[in-house]
């Protein structure tokens, strides 16, 4: 089925690459490029509108919004990356072990993932944060603990596929050690599709993390995380709606960038290999 669509044409992929590229640049150099010190308060210039000195105005403590957004990029994206890495750390071994050992181990692990999958992720994250206490670290742990089952499932499926390949069977016949088998033959097969899925997941991870910060149970002020900035600005919604619109727009652009990037790569891979999400 050949359909012209925004998501699958190179236009979508290119937009994604440009968006994420810009964000990465800001993440790494934002602190240096920022026109003002993101944490410097000036109580005489609270809630100011747009001006040449403060392109996006100032917040309720007189801090420059643009500088805070720029310097917060690293934290916001970094938290999402940390979450993704944590998810992989849990999901990869569990998926690999269950697929390779099979039998009751497989059954047990898959039943456990069933239980976790029964919950909407944000509810599970919320409850975990409740037990750990509200902070960005708790949010990362909470989201990772809610998220790993779906990835473990995917790793399991990919590994089962990889194990059925002839050359894998041949090396097993030759008595290759399981660890060598995983490193040499399994991982090279499963990592590329896994990374594609992770780049798609990054979008949703970013969404959930910023939602938690927005609710006040993720990153805490004065951290310049985007969701936390939104949360801090909420009491001033009627006075200066712009304070809430700017960080929200940035989150949306980042999420859209990851969505377009992931969809684009997935489509490209789809044409070459039989891997399907």
């Amino acid at each position, binding site marked *: *089925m050949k*359909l*012209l*669509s*925004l*998501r699958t044409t190179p236009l*979508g992929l290119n937009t994604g690459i440009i968006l994420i590229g810009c964000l990465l640049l800001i993440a790494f150099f934002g602190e240096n490029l920022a026109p003002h010190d993101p944490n410097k308060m000036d109580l005489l210039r609270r809630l100011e509108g747009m001006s040449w000195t403060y392109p996006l105005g100032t917040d309720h403590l007189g801090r420059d919004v643009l500088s805070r957004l720029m310097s917060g990029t690293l934290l916001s994206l970094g938290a999402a990356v940390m979450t993704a890495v944590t998810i992989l750390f849990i999901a990869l071994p569990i998926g690999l072990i269950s697929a390779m050992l099979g039998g009751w181990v497989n059954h047990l692990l898959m*039943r*456990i993932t*069933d*239980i976790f*999958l*029964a*919950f*909407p*992720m*944000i*509810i*599970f994250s*919320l*409850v*975990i*944060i*409740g*037990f750990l*206490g*509200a902070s960005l670290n708790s949010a990362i742990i909470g989201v990772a603990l809610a998220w790993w089952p779906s990835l473990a499932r995917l790793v399991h499926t990919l590994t089962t596929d990889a194990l059925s390949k002839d050359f894998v069977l041949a090396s097993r016949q030759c008595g290759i050690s399981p660890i060598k088998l995983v490193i040499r033959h399994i991982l090279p097969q499963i990592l590329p599709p896994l990374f594609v899925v992770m780049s798609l997941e990054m*979008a949703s991870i970013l*969404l959930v993390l*910023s*939602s938690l910060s*927005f*609710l*006040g*149970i993720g990153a805490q002020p004065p951290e310049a995380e985007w969701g936390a900035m*939104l949360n801090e600005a909420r009491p001033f*919604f*009627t006075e200066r*709606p712009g304070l*809430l*619109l700017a960080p*929200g*727009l940035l*989150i*949306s652009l980042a*999420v*859209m960038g990851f*969505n*377009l990037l992931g*969809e684009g790569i997935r489509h490209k891979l789809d044409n070459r290999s039989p891997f399907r999400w």
Partner: protein
Amino acid sequence: MQTFILKRIATAIPTLLGMSMLGFFMVALTPGDPVEMELRRLGVIFTPDQVTALRQEYGLDQPIFKRYLDWLIRLLHLDMGHSIASGRSVLEEFKTHLPLTLILASLSLSLSILLSSLFGITAALTRSQILGSFVQFFSIFLVSIPSFWLALLLLFIFALSLEWISLLGSGAWYDLVLPVLTLSLGSAATMGRLIRDRILAAMSEDYIRLAITKGLSPALILRRHILKSILPPLVTNWAVTFGALLGGSVIVENIFNLPGLGQMALQAVFERDFSILQAYLLFMGLIFFVSNFIADLLNYWLTPHFREQNSSQGATE
């Protein structure tokens, strides 16, 4: 039919038990002695002997597995303990907060189904490139917007700029309009895309092509052939969406200041009200299970051969 229902319930029991274990051990393994914490909170000066006595009274000196069983038995009698913050029983708290969240999620689901069918079917049937691209663009746009931001945008437009509604709410039914809109737009976009893709896929099947060549009217083909084949996966998707909407209600209730389950749970996070959180986890799991169960029943009714295929799985596929 009966065997199907029994089988479905039997396979759910291990999952529900697992959920209860998760809920129990998460609280039991949280660092800090609950008795000491409670005494400190009350500001009582206590001796180690008193703590031991109280621990005995609460059964905290028992082995953890025995405690789990006791807790489970109390749970089956709907005794889920008391909220630390309000002092009311957890069951009472749920009774106050549940209806609003259920209404919110049900209305949002209905609106999403309506909107997505409208857009999905139109986009697929007209095969219009413009409409198709529009649906796709909108779906990626709405999926990428955080729901809290969408809510704020809607508030900005309708409350601040147009001043059609009050920011504070008025206690009337139309307070729910913006929350429902916020919740349903995102899922409607995803579902609309799903419907469109499914219909297009079904239209390339041989039997549909035959029906088209036979000269049947599009409306008849859609009603008699296509809907029949795409409805079961859609029903499953609706059940999953319902769960996601319950999750999303946490954010929406917070923004629009609606006293539902989500607000209750969020408050419990701030107050570290563990019995509420424990019950919330179990309850959400149960609702999610029930909605999937209903979807399975509907699917069973929609497709006669389902009974052979579907013995255990259904929702997670």
